[in-house]
């Protein structure tokens, strides 16, 4: 399946997670399977997992140079190109994963896919990974519990402001270093999805995980406009249709996978703390001012559209 025949359009998909067992890796594999079966003779897709080819920073440049055709970096990686994707980072914006889905398929969400056309990128769909939870080396029930703690975050101004709002200290660390850093106390806590907390075993080296669902973690399936425009109409239509279907199927599986991994963490003997409505209200109250800081970058109408998707 991996060797491409002569005359086939080669589609290289480079990403940074394992080929299986991670929602992004699974979706990429699914996409490659379908393209290679249904577009046989016309196109052929090769997936390079685990940063084998490029990391998330350089893959964007490789897209422009035409050496890679597909990538799916985390949304927070697009800050250098557009600030609009910061909407996904806003804390306590989406009530649950279906709200995110509704926003993504709304006019506003779809329009957002085109927001980097001027730099030469075309978004093809949002690949959800889950909602993020906080964990630390001490119980976190109220925002004040996080005061003075060092949290590992992904590169994102919003996340940094969010950690500042709860009186914590935001630290950037490579993903693979997080376990060791939590264990030895280089950082006190982290925020991530159930699946990442489970597969990286963060729960082993934390006091417990607080079910905050405070932020969505999602990736953007992205290609270069130049490449997409170079396809003939029929091929492009077929390719985009497959992409759309795989995006939907992948996202539908995410909620399930998240619930399963949450359960596995419990079974491993870790503590999961649920917030009472009052406690949750306190977190929201402390973090909501963060929205205001980024309203100008994102656009008020976009935020309103996102809020509307909660109903």
């Amino acid at each position, binding site marked *: 399946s991996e060797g491409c025949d002569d005359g086939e359009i080669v589609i290289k998909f480079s990403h940074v997670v394992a080929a299986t067992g991670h929602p992004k890796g699974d979706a990429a594999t699914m996409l490659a399977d379908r393209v290679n079966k249904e577009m046989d003779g016309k196109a052929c897709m090769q997936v390079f997992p685990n940063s084998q080819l490029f990391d998330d920073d350089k893959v964007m*440049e490789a897209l*422009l140079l035409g050496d890679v055709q597909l990538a799916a970096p985390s949304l927070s990686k697009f800050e250098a190109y557009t600030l609009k994707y910061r909407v996904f980072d806003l804390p306590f914006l989406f009530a649950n994963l279906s709200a995110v889905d509704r926003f993504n398929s709304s006019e506003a969400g779809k329009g957002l896919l085109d927001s980097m056309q001027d730099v030469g990128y075309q978004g093809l769909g949002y690949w959800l990974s889950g909602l993020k939870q906080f964990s630390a080396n001490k119980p976190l029930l109220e925002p004040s519990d996080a005061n*003075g703690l060092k949290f590992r975050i992904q590169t994102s101004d919003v996340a940094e402001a969010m950690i500042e709002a709860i009186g914590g*200290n935001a*630290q950037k660390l490579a993903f693979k270093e997080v376990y060791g850093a939590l264990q030895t106390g280089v950082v006190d806590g982290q925020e991530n999805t159930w699946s990442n907390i489970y597969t990286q075993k963060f729960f082993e080296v934390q006091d417990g995980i607080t079910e905050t669902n405070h932020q969505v973690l999602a990736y953007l399936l992205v290609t270069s406009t130049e490449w997409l425009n170079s396809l003939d109409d029929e091929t492009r239509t077929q390719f985009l249709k497959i992409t759309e279907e795989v995006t939907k199927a992948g996202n539908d599986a995410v909620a399930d996978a998240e619930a399963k991994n949450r359960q596995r963490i419990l079974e491993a003997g870790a503590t999961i703390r649920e917030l009472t409505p009052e406690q949750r209200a306190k977190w929201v109250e402390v973090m909501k001012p963060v929205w205001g800081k980024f309203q100008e970058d994102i656009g008020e109408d976009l935020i309103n559209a996102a809020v509307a998707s909660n109903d």
Partner: protein
Amino acid sequence: MQRVDNWVTRFEESVLALLLAAMTIVSFTQVVARYGFNTGWTGALEFTRILFAWLILFGMSYGVKIGAHLGVDAFIRLLPKKVFRVIAVFGAACGLLYAAILLSADWLSIFGIDTRGGAIDYWSRMYKIGIGLDDLRYPEFIQETFGTKERVQRWIAYLILPLGLTLFGFRCLQAMIAIIQGKQETMIAAHEAEELVAEHKDELKD
């Protein structure tokens, strides 16, 4: 001429020393800031990594100049002197070829090889779209005084690619000429501790 040479060497060594010192100090300060004061500079890591790339890509030509790049000379030393010299010239030519292809591979199409791009093409594309680095931002007074964008542009960091490769090619060419003229034997060092050993050469000899 000799004086210019010495001046250039001093300049190259100062740049290298400065890059290494800056990397060390920024990383060290970052640890102190985090552990001692629970704070830090977000751009520190990216800055250090760019300095690291500059150290290597700037330094690789200096390595050719002082003949510090490692190679295996055990086999070619068995050959007659004349053959040895031809092969040594070939070694330097390989370095020149490496730099020339990496700078821009477009010229290979003369020989019917289908390939394109290179460091110059990469750099100029980054220059044209002008996108910024992830974490490295201009201090506010620079943004205000010079009206720059918020983020430091990627092309500034990548400038060392075409620059370093050009210098590298130039030094290889120089080595090639020196070998042809018989002023230099090869462009390689046989092992990584040659200089260290030279400093302590035969210290324990009877």
